[in-house]
């Protein structure tokens, strides 16, 4: 096998670009799908749990109970949807998902408060979406605590004991993302997702396509060496996906104000390494499949799914059971995402992200080297199986 030649690579790149251009829709998707996803993530998709529909059963009907209800309905977390006469009315509303939480205030609530007995209220939560349920539980706990403190301080002030007020002042500060907007959290994940999916799927399918049509053999018997072919096939997709990632970065800066806080060269390094790994993965898939259908399913399974689930895109890695956490060590998106979030949102330098960069480099080497080795061997392999020729 001869080594790669510049002329050979250039002619394959040209051919591939021509093929991509001819299929303008695929090119459009590679560039605009990411932008489209960004718009959805920026405008529509948020993990912030707000405006939970709340039903109230006020068994007391006192000023104190109304005040408590106000504590809920004046926040943006809860919207008062229904005031119900009795608890049995809650059931059907919750079953139909009309409400996500219900607050039941017992009779004599105000009386108990005045007497200094600590009354309890009942809270019903729809747990079928665990995330919303848990968040709602947190809000409710915090609101009740604030209310309790307020009542206590009012009572003390009335009795002239105001000097005792509020023994602890907790100042809460949120770093990096002070408004707690989930788009800041999701956008780096989106970039990883885009790079991984576009690169892996398009590399795999563009090579398998030639195999399926039988044009791979034509290319092979031409004067091109196999490294030329492989490198030439990869370069266009690497360039397109990097371009598309930059478009996402630009749009997220312009539209959502998610600017790059850290160093751009470092970010670029992380992206290039990640893309190399994804290219290697795509190549590897193409070397073990014969039809585009299988290549597509395999690429989907090994790129989209781990990037979505095992990288910390949405689900925190530390919540996973140990075995699954062990698997995530082999998912490059995990490292890429950590590096990306640190660089973009936290202004972290090489000192903070070098382990991630190192791993990305290792994965890129492994994936590219492994698939190059397989492709090299695979030359002699395209045997028709058990004599059954293609129809």
């Amino acid at each position, binding site marked *: 096998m001869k080594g790669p030649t510049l002329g050979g690579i250039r002619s394959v790149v040209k051919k591939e670009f021509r093929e991509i251009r001819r299929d303008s829709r695929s090119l459009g*998707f590679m560039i605009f799908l990411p932008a489209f996803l960004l718009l959805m993530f920026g405008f529509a998709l948020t993990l912030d749990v707000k405006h939970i529909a709340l039903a109230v059963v006020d068994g007391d009907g006192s000023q104190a109970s109304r005040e408590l209800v106000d504590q809920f309905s004046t926040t943006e977390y809860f919207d008062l949807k229904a005031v119900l006469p009795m608890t049995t009315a809650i059931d059907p509303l919750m079953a139909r998902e009309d409400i996500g939480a219900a607050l039941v205030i017992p009779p004599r609530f105000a009386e108990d408060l005045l007497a200094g007995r600590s009354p309890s209220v009942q809270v019903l939560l729809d747990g079928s979406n665990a995330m919303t349920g848990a968040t709602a539980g947190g809000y409710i706990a915090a609101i009740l605590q604030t209310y309790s403190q307020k009542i206590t301080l009012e009572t003390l002030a009335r009795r002239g004991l105001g000097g005792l007020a509020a023994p*602890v002042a907790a100042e*809460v500060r*949120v770093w990096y993302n002070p408004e707690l907007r989930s788009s800041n959290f999701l956008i780096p994940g989106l970039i990883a997702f885009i790079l991984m999916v576009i690169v892996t799927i398009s590399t795999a399918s563009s090579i398998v396509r030639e195999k399926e049509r039988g044009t791979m053999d034509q290319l092979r018997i031409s004067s091109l060496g196999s490294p030329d072919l492989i490198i030439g096939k990869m370069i266009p997709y690497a360039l397109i996906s990097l371009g598309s990632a930059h478009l996402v970065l630009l749009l997220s800066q312009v539209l959502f104000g998610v600017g790059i806080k850290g160093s751009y060269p470092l970010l670029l390094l992380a992206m290039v390494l990640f893309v190399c790994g994804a290219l290697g993965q795509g190549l590897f898939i193409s070397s073990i499949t014969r039809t585009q259908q299988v290549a597509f399913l395999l690429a989907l399974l090994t790129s989209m799914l781990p990037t979505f*689930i095992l990288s910390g895109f949405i689900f925190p890695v530390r919540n996973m059971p140990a075995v699954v956490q062990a698997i995530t060590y082999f998912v490059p998106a995990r490292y890429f995402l950590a590096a990306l979030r640190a660089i973009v949102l936290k202004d972290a330098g090489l000192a903070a992200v070098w382990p991630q960069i190192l791993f990305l480099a290792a994965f890129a080497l492994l994936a590219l080297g492994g698939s190059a080795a397989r492709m090299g061997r695979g030359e002699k392999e395209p045997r028709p199986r058990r004599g059954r020729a293609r129809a």
Partner: protein
Amino acid sequence: MKAILSIVHKEFLQLRRDRRLFPLLFLSPILQLLLLGYAANLDVRNIPAVVCDQDGSAASREFIAGFLNSGYFSVRARVGRLEAIDAYLDRGLASTAFVIPRGFGDDLAGGRPGKVMIIADGVESQTATIGVNYSTMIAKRYAQRLLLERLERVQGRGGIRPVQVDARVRVWYNPELKSRNFMIPGVLGLILMVMTIALASMGIVREKEAGTMEQLIVTPIRPHQLIVGKLLPFVLIGLVEAAFVLAVAAFWFVVPVRGSLGLILLACLAFMLNTLGFGLLISTISRTQQQAIFTAIFFIMPMILLGGFVIPIESMPPFFQAVSRAIPTRYFFTMIRGLMIRGAGWPEIWDQMLPLAALGAFVLSLSIARFRKKLD
């Protein structure tokens, strides 16, 4: 009928041609299910925290203990200097920091308000929101207890007591708030959708690409027979996969399947009207398999994201909530979650089933019309 069967037979033969396809068709749902079942966990527990206790008094230790015993936080490191916190948060080694400045204990003993600072890493906004809520609550609870002690000192027992309104929280349908119970029914929809859209669109386009479509057209098979024969295998594969996923969900993950299997089947069928319709539609507007792949992803992504697979529709802005009404996954996800987790019956799901079936009928007839036009 015989013509249809022969097409179905041909389709299966063709699917079997690539020996890697069938294992993949069944391996991938299992993998997805296992991964999502185990990994998709948004529960907020043991948030890694750094403690910076500059006071080192009994009061500060007691205050910190309140956080650590709550189960929401676990200590990763204790640091002496405030600046040392940066490294932990920057690298993501901790997502919360508790800072107790010097003099906290003295302030409390002297009746002055003690100041503390709680720092949260806002990048993981979901965890941070819950973490901030709970730390506020825990801090206030501690304050309340101190107040009680002081009151007792001032006026002895039996005077005014600080009130504490407690919530007795009952969680319905999913009392342990397991993310799994929310995610797995969604996975059923995800798998059905991805498999049927991908298989149907690519299968038909492949025939166009290979030029065998013309051969089929010149045979005496009528267009509707061809369409039914082409789509039927995917319906069967989809149903087998759905049954498979349901079995793994129920027996391995012990996700409740409270509703009736008949209704679940009906929901799957109504859903597949949509996905096969989209698959067929994609095949009519794509020339190559690569185009079909990208078009399929283009359809699938919004269906996953705007359909409420992970992100609840209620938290979307009104415009996108309206858009999601045109998205079949929305109805399917709501229905399948209702059927499995809430034990919903026909009265609770009919208003989801009807729009889903209507959408499906619309998409499918649109794509059939386009497909026939291409054939003629």
